[in-house]
């Protein structure tokens, strides 16, 4: 395993220390349990927006803590959901009395841990709501699966709901908005290589030189199917088509197109893929009104990409454009 780390068991704590030092103006990092909270929290009267999940997806979630986005993030071990005490600790540090919205990616572990935390918080009298993010069209949403995973769309939910909370929207509005964004967001990803989890020491799966995993998640889980390596045009079509037909997105829809690197794919390739996706959407008469391109929801050093489409309306555009100031996303502030 080739990584810039010390002891595998210390990776998350040491990375959090670096995050805290690098962005001391925006956030503070707590240990035992690990939490990342806005430097100016709690903000009285503001709905607190809290998320979290396994580490290894950086900048998600800690890199989105700050003005106009998350009030706190709970980083679990690498690819492992956080524990209830982390979530409780985070909430207690950011609860401004206007209620707390938990944004949870749909994985059994995340659901169970956030659920436990939410029960305990409710018992303490905190008005806490949970919205589950499940944007991954690669997974069939049926009684016979754990349901769709939360992947790239998470950034969009966090940004838009964070903006509403920052403007002073109440808990009901924030919750409704989160559900609207989730309902209008669809993603799909693929990988060319596997990530290596520090405490495991070797790649999560093995791919032949001419293979790719399609319908991959962000935890080194193998994807839905293995396919012969395609060129960029083929890869983009293979992601875009199932997304488009799922919602479905239709002609004249206004959308936000988010082209995400899984971590190891260089920007050169990502922009190339983004261009192909934008052109393909334009040909279908779908209007790409906002774009986000970069490594925002990653899977360690995995090479690969995902596409996320969000159907926009005026309110969502306004909230997307609203000021945000976090380590990884910043504009207007």
């Amino acid at each position: 395993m080739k990584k810039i780390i010390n002891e595998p068991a210390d990776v998350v704590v040491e990375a959090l220390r670096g995050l805290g030092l690098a962005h001391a103006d925006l956030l503070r990092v707590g240990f035992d349990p690990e939490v990342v909270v806005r430097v100016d929290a709690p903000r009285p009267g503001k709905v607190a927006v809290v998320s979290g999940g396994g580490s290894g997806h950086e900048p998600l979630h800690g890199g989105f803590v700050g003005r106009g986005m998350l009030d706190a993030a709970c980083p679990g071990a690498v690819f492992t959901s956080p524990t209830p005490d982390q979530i409780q600790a985070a909430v207690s540090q950011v609860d401004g009395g206007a209620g707390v919205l938990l944004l949870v990616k749909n994985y059994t572990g995340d659901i169970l841990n956030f659920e436990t935390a939410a029960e305990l918080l409710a018992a303490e009298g905190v008005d806490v709501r949970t919205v589950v993010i499940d944007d991954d069209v690669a997974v069939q949403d049926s009684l016979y699966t754990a349901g769709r995973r939360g992947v790239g769309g998470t950034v969009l939910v966090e940004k838009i709901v964070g903006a509403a909370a920052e403007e002073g929207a109440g808990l009901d509005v924030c919750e409704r908005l989160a559900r609207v964004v989730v309902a209008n967001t669809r993603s799909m990803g693929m990988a060319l290589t596997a990530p290596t989890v520090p405490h495991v020491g070797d790649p999560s799966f093995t791919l032949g030189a001419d293979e790719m995993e399609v319908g991959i998640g962000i935890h080194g889980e193998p994807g839905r199917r293995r396919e012969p390596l395609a060129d960029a045009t083929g890869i983009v079509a293979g992601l875009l088509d199932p997304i488009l037909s799922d919602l479905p997105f239709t002609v004249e829809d206004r959308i936000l197109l988010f082209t995400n690197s899984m971590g190891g794919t260089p920007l050169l390739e990502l922009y190339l893929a983004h261009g192909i996706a934008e052109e393909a959407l334009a040909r279908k008469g779908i209007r790409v009104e906002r774009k986000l391109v970069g490594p925002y929801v990653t899977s360690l050093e995995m090479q690969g990409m995902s596409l996320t489409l969000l159907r926009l309306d005026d309110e969502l555009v306004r909230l997307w454009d609203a000021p945000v100031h976090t380590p990884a996303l910043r504009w207007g502030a």
Partner: protein
Amino acid sequence: MPCDAKSVAAAVLSAADTITAHRDELVRLDQAVGDGDHGENLNRGFGFVRAALEKSIPDTPGAVLKLVATTLIAKVGGAAGPLYGTAFLRAATALGDASELTADLLVAALRAALSGVVARGKAEPGDKTMVDALTPAADATGTTIADILTAAAAAAQAGADSTVPLVARKGRASYLGERSAGHLDPGARSTALLLNAFAKAANT
């Protein structure tokens, strides 16, 4: 030999050692159908359990299991943390404040553990989860603690083995669809390992 808090703690410690010894195996199993953290997570959790029990042992078997439960919930994360946490918590509740574990209490505790896992995780037998190991284990009967645990461990391992051909319908492995078939479920395996460690402890 009466089975007091100290005996239960000793059994838990030997279960912790088993998890350490099988950490890598569980990582490999979870790599095949999940995200490769099951062995690491349980090992981390039971490491904290070990540290806690080495410092001081609670007064009753139920209190020992409650300590295991709260530690796993606080330290493991993932799916297995809350599921095993709930299992131990319900088992602890079933034991009440009895100062010694009896065969009857053990049967009740196993059943409570199963119903806790099912209540939390909503998995049914055949979904390719730890429920496939725990369900037959909770049916184990016998007149002594050692007998019951021996039967439960054997049933759990058989249940775990039965997960191999299954297509997962719960947990992370379900994302794989048909590709999950042909692999042993890591959580079912760790359930069998834990019960086997308890059985061994009861037999010595």
